[in-house]
Each structure stands twice: as C-alpha cells, then as structure tokens.
C-alpha cells in the first residue's frame, strides 16, 4: 500500500463517500438496537421471552427477520466502516448521524408497529404499560431528531467548505 499517512491516490484530498458512511452508520445503529434488546431485555431483565405464546405465525417470521438483521448489520456495518477508514473516505458526522437514525428508527419501529399495531410482544408484562411505551418512543424520537440534525449539519458544512 502507499506509505504511512498519505492518502491513497484513488481518492482526492477531502473526498468522502457520504452514501457509504451513512449506510454503515445506519447498519451499526440497527445492530446496536437489536443487541440492546437481546441482552438488556431478554437476558438481564427477563422482560422479553424466547417465544411469546401470543405471537402469530407471521410474527415469528418478523422475529426471524429482525434477528437476522441484527447479526448481519453489525458485521457488514463494521467491515464497511473499516473499508471507509482505510480509504480515508469516512465522514464522522454522517456516520454518527446514520447511527442515531438507525438506533432511534429501529426503536421507534419496534415501539409503535411491533408493540402496538401488530401486538407481537410488549415491553413488560403485568404492569401499566403506558409509561414504558412513552419513554421508549420519546427516546427513539429524540435520537432520530439528533441524527437528522447531524446529517443536515454535515451537508451544510460540506457545501460551505470543501473539508468535512
């Protein structure tokens, strides 16, 4: 490879791959959401269970897809991140913006569609559920908003100056 610290000649100075940075961040964000769900709620708190008996058949399918998402996303997202770094085309703001979007977006999807509309499972059983739901969805919305702010800031910073 080219010498230490010098930019690979295939990419111009300051050139960043914005699409891949965002995608990599989103993937890792989704993966983190999945892992927090698995470890915190399944293993530590035992609020979620391996198989919730009220789950309809297609709920199992969506569970399976969600599960595959988690593993797949973390591996692909991190390898893409490594690739961006070695090409010096990584954009910090875009990556973290994507990360927050992925994390918050997945949490919001889980909190609204999976818990409420489809009723696949709840955050916790045998308690009044609305405080849990509110905190869950509000946190998710805040993360999405911060993510969008970061992305917009990154785009405006790029249009003002050539640096990221």
């Amino acid at each position, binding site marked *: 490879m080219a010498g230490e610290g010098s930019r690979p000649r*295939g990419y111009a100075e300051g050139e960043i791959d914005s699409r891949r940075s965002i995608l990599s961040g989103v993937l890792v964000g989704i993966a983190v959401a999945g892992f927090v769900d698995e470890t915190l709620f399944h293993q530590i708190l035992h609020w979620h269970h391996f198989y919730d008996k009220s789950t309809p058949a297609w709920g199992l399918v969506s569970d*399976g897809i969600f599960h*595959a*998402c988690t*593993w797949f996303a973390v591996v692909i997202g991190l390898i893409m991140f490594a690739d961006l770094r070695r090409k010096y085309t990584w954009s910090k703001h875009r990556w973290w913006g994507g990360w927050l979007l992925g994390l918050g977006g997945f949490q919001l999807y889980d909190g609204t569609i999976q818990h409420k509309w489809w009723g696949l499972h709840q955050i916790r059983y045998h308690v009044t559920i609305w405080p849990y739901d509110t905190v869950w969805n509000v946190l998710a919305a805040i993360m999405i908003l911060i993510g969008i702010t970061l992305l917009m800031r990154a785009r405006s910073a790029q249009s003002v100056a050539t640096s990221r």
Partner: protein
Amino acid sequence: MLLAHEAVASPGIAAFLPALPLLLAAGLYLFAYARVRRQRVGWPLIRVASFVGGLLAIALALLPPLAAHDEQFQVHVSQHLLLAMVAPLLLALSAPITLALRTLPRRCRHILVRVLHTRPLQLLSHPVFAALLDFAPLSLLYLTPLYGYTLTHPQVHELMHAHFLFAGCLFAWATVGSDALPGRASVRLRGIVIFLAFAAHATISKMIYASGPASAGVRGTSLHDWRLGAELMFYGGDAVELFLVLAFALQWYRLEGKRLERKTQPPVANAATAATLATENIRGKALQPRLDGLAAAATLAAEGFRRPVDVVTGVEGSRTRRSLDRMRGRCVPDEAR
C-alpha cells in the same frame, strides 16, 4: 461420498465405517497439498486446516458417541448443525476444487473444467436454488411427521444425513466458497440470500419450538427436551451463520483492498499489470503486487513460465490455453491424444 450403514445398537466396528471415506478424502487433500507446494505459487496452510476441520466435523456427527444416541432430539440437532452448517462452511473455504485444478493430470483437469461449465452444475451452484434446497426440506422435516418416519427407518435416516451435508455444501459453495466457480452470482445477490437464509433459520427454529414433538411424529421425546433442541438449533445456527456472514464480508473487504491497490499503483508496463490481474484469487508470496512487479514478471518469465495465466494454474506451461478457451465457452478442437 458413500455413507456406510450405521450400527443399530452397540457401537461395534460397523459404527466406525463412515470414517473410511473421510480418511480417504483427507489423504487425497494432503497428497494434493504436498504436490502443490512444489509449484511456484503455494497454497495457504489455513485452507488445509479448514478442510481437515470440516472432515472432523462430519466425523464428529456420524461416529459414536454422538451417532449412538441420536434418537435424542438435542443430539440430533447437534448432528444437523455439524453436518449441514459447520462442515460445509469449512469445506467450502478450503477451496478443494481449485486445489484439484492445480494438481490433477492434464486430462482430468480438462474434464473437471468441462463439468464445471455444464448447465446442471450452474443451476445447482446458484445461491437461490441452493438455499431453497437447503431450507425447504428443513421445514418439511421437523414440522411434519416426516421426522418421526426417519427415526424408525434407518435408510431414510442415512438419506437425511446425506441430504444435510449435500445441500449445506451447495449453499456454502454458492455463497462464500473460496472456489470461484464459473457463473458465480453477484455480491449483492449472495448477500441477500445469506440474509434471508439467516432469517429463515431463525424463524424455522422458533416454529419448531412452538410446534412440539407430536406434530413431528416423535413419540419418545418430552416437550422440554424438544424445546431445548429447538433453542440449540436457534443459537447454534446463529453462531455458525455469524461466521458465514463474517467470511462473506471479509471476502468483500479483500476484494475491495485489491481494487484499491490497483487504483493506487502508478501505471506499470503490461506484463506486470497482467501478472497482478492474474493473481487476483491466489495468495502467493512470490506474486504480491508491488511497484517492482515488472521485475517479478521478468523473473518468472526467465524461469520458464510463459504467461501469467500459467502462473495461475501453476503448471509448467502446458495446454492452459485450451482450458481457458473452454472456460470462456469457445470451441476447442478435439485433441488427438
């Protein structure tokens, strides 16, 4: 591969018969490895380890003690994971077909190349077909009384094991195989198939958990044991699929790295660039693309290798062009040999 009929009761000598074809395969691979080491471009030792590891996984699944207790559902699930997921992944990553192409005599090599380009094989090695062949019987087997049937009929049981191994190998070769088979699907398609396979495995495992042994036609297993087996299938499948995704992503990473190196090299003369391109899929110490690639190509030419393509197949420059012409689908006049 012939799978011998397993002994029914105590593990007598007949129970160890499945070891014979495995030992034969290991012997062939090691013999080929010894031959290929003498060639200019070597063979990574980790591939040998991977092949032996895959054979060990098959041995673990088919020999006692595991095979002696396989009426228990958890033991059966471990066998399934080993035969259908661990062993195929390790075997596919060891690139035995490429090794064969490097070490077989010329005649056999041409036959192999011709076979690899036939339509049926292209269909078999397509990721979508391989995935369907792998996962559709999986749901049929455990969610219908078919599984109970295999427990009472030993021949069908053997057939089931053979199917696990065969379908698993097809899937592994089609998605992450180190043998770059002709007509291999794109990275995107393979990635999508791996993702869907992952999801299907998780879903089917949970369905098995939910359905219970009665609907699979099994009588001797308690619901608790059945559920433990289903969870083992879920988490065990997770672990192996993780390595599958990792292998896939790392292959992509390596390919991108080679593309990047090509982009960053200053333009060199044709011979060196051709040598770089020719070694795309081979990891050989003598041929790492460097700025002095021109010198390396000159050395090789001096030592009797006529073209980079001869370096790829590693033979002392014989009828490689005919093989390549066949690979490209051009007509080749029959040899008068």
